[in-house]
């Protein structure tokens, strides 16, 4: 894998339509596997308060924050429901040899 890509886990370690937490140095991410078997990554913490989205519920392409039920489209980072109004930062994800990689700048 080329520079800047960091191994997250084996593909099977994230259930379909679910999310896990991934910490790397100072950054904490939420890494998703969609209901269409695609992988995505966003900042781990909600943009409303400092609550980790990996405790939230994935429904289709949406992650719902466990604290106040704010929602984001995790494929684009866009905020979808108040009180979340600021977008989430997203990160590129790649699959290679059965492993999930994320690029943290």
């Amino acid at each position, binding site marked *: 894998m080329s520079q800047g890509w960091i191994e997250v886990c084996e593909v099977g370690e994230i*259930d379909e*339509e679910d999310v896990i937490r991934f910490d790397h140095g100072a950054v904490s991410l939420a890494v998703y596997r969609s209901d269409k078997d695609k992988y995505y990554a966003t900042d781990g913490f909600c943009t409303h308060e400092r609550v980790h989205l990996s*405790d*939230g*519920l994935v429904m289709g392409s949406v992650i*719902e924050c*466990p*604290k*106040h*039920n704010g929602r984001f489209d995790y494929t684009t980072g866009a905020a979808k429901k*108040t009180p979340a109004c600021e977008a989430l930062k997203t990160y590129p994800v790649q699959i290679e040899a059965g492993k999930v990689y994320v690029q943290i700048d």
Partner: protein
Amino acid sequence: MTEAGIVIVGAGEAGARAALELRECGWTGSITLIGKESRAPYERPPLSKSALVEESEPSPAFILDETKLDRLRIQLITDSKVSEIDRNGRNVLMEDGCRIPYHRLLLTTGASPRKLALEGSDTSGVLGLRSFGDALAIRSRLLPGKHIVVIGGGFIGLEVAASAREKGCEVTIVEVGPRILMRGVPLPIAEVVEARHRSAGVEFKLGIGLAKIELEGDRYAIILADGTVVRCDTIIAGIGAIPETSLAAACGLDIDNGIVVNDKLTTSDPHIYAAGDCCSFPHALYDGQRIRLEAWRNAQDQGIVAARNMAGASESYAAVPWFWSDQYDLTLQVAGLPDRAATMVRRESPDGGFQVYFHLAEDGRIVAASGIGRGGLAKEIRVAEMLIEREARPDPASLMNPEVKLKTLLAL
């Protein structure tokens, strides 16, 4: 006089959320938010938790700040109590004599802590907790080694007790009921909470009432019904809250355990709405029975629905009741109304981090879920909430089996 707009009485959770939503849904008229507290609307849940234990001087978690108020053209009037509603003239009268006309009026007056009353005892020094000022007063008493007695084993009392232990106080909880959390939480969860408090060193006096409180210098002697004496430095009462209905009652609106509203959150006057802790409403999920909640999300969501309806929509409020409580390292969550159930089944997370009880009605319908623990609890309760909303009849065996992903039951 300016054109009558929307007036909101009570600048707390529901009032603030309503003001925000009015702009969100396109209301362009004036919005006046009136509150008797000196501060802009802020969040109350931290008052029994972080605000009591934080090292540094806490500041309120404001819901609305100056910039937002300006940008959204919301007029906030603080330090002002509304003393009367003139329904014929459609205006509210403030204590300073000012009258403000309304096109639509929203009452979000909340609830006030029930005051401890004991015949023959001076209870004026007993502290209650509702406002940021109350939290500061309690905080200043939570000094290491001081003995704090909490009257009442409900959520607020228990959270204050946990915070007081974290600050190094000696803590005793006196509860007249046979156990803590009698309302709305099943026994096994109350037992987990009690055990956690006991392991933290909290003492319990359960199933016993108060006889008398005596002042001993700057300390108190609490005499219990069985004659036991508990001496302490501070008494904090968490014995429930009473809905603030006096304004509504005085102008003739219907009252029944709160200001009576229908599913659209309209009171018995079609120009007046009510939302949050102050109102009682019929709940479609529970055979239209009238309930009143004292919960943060309900206050928010009702504020939002009332705002939309005042601006012309016709939405029904039927959200599943939900609340949480944080004590020590534990989080407790309840969705729905557990007391409407006939049976319950238990699921434990594979790693033992949390347990959830699903509460089922006689016909197998899931009416509530309650859980305690850490980590993945929120997800399970959230899915349960969706099952409750759909009036699902999930297979109890699947509910109990942690190998079965709860989400898969939604698809059935």
